[in-house]
């Protein structure tokens, strides 16, 4: 695998993880204020 292909894969993983963490952060913040859990219910 070329170094460019490796970099693209790493960037894609970073994007997906960060996007998911962004959504989870909002859910966690709302749960803190209003009540709720990170587990179960809506996906993300």
């Amino acid at each position, binding site marked *: 695998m070329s170094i460019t292909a490796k970099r693209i894969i790493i960037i894609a993983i970073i994007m997906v993880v960060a996007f998911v963490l962004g959504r989870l952060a909002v859910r966690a913040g709302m*749960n803190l204020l209003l*009540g*709720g859990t990170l*587990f179960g219910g809506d996906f993300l």
Partner: protein
Amino acid sequence: MSKTKKEKKVRVVSVGLGILIFVLAFGAGVVSKVAIKPAWAQKYAVTWSDELGTLKSDLPYGEGEANRFDLYLPKDGTKDSYGLVVYLHAGGFTSGDKADDRSTLAWLCGKGYVAAGINYTLRTEEHPEASVLSQSNEIKAAVPKVIEAAEAAGYHIDKMAMAGGSAGHALAMIYAYRDGKDAPVPVVFTYGAVGPSSFVAEDWGIFGLGQDTEESRQAGAGLFSVMSGKEITPEEIKDGSYREKVHEIAAAEWVENNPIPTVVAYGALDKVQPFLASLRLEEALKENGVDYKYFVLEHSGHGLQNDSAVSKLWMEAIDEYLAKYMPVK
């Protein structure tokens, strides 16, 4: 430039790029969560336009600065009679405005109902005397004026529904069950979400109430005094006599007075309105043979934010009950 220096520079740029991409994608995740609503929910939130009808804003119903309502009249004004849906805004009895629910009111108007959003005097520094009781009495005074205004515009009202969110839901239920029999037209349906309907100290443990300590009783006396607009002492919390003073604002205790069809939703993990209090409402609905639907969002709190599938069922039930008990002719 030496090979080592070049490699170091490439590494710094790569790490910097990675951090930048992380921040941007994180931001996109936040925005997507906040701004993008489920596809099913878009049906129930309509952007107001003159295509839907006529909006009469800030019509007065009393002397108070907040005693104003907005009236949404459907485009087709040729029918013999119309159903009225009053939707009361949320805000913990201390904030919020009828304009906050414009998209909901527009949806109702678009369905063919006369819709109204009513403001009430909020408990603020300027109005420390305002309470749930005074607000419920303002709503009681407002409803006949809303109907008068609709009639004056040529829309004859023959029945109505009361609805709202959170604090507005509490006030809607109080009107529906406590005052509904005195309404100018039959109140045939009530719906809403996360409105407190019962004030029993044991249920309000999320605020430290219901414990056998002086501190807990003082907290209970303070909270329930503010809500009921009546002086409640820690001793009354202890001996249970406070229940008479909160009775007027405890919608669940009035269901038997006017047991009308009801659709409600509550978050099982609510930190603002105790879920336990809503169980008393369900008990009252069951005991009085009400045609009701009670949705529990097991993973959600006051925002009903984590159970989209149940929220969808709740809104579908509202649609179904509106069609059943207040069909658009």
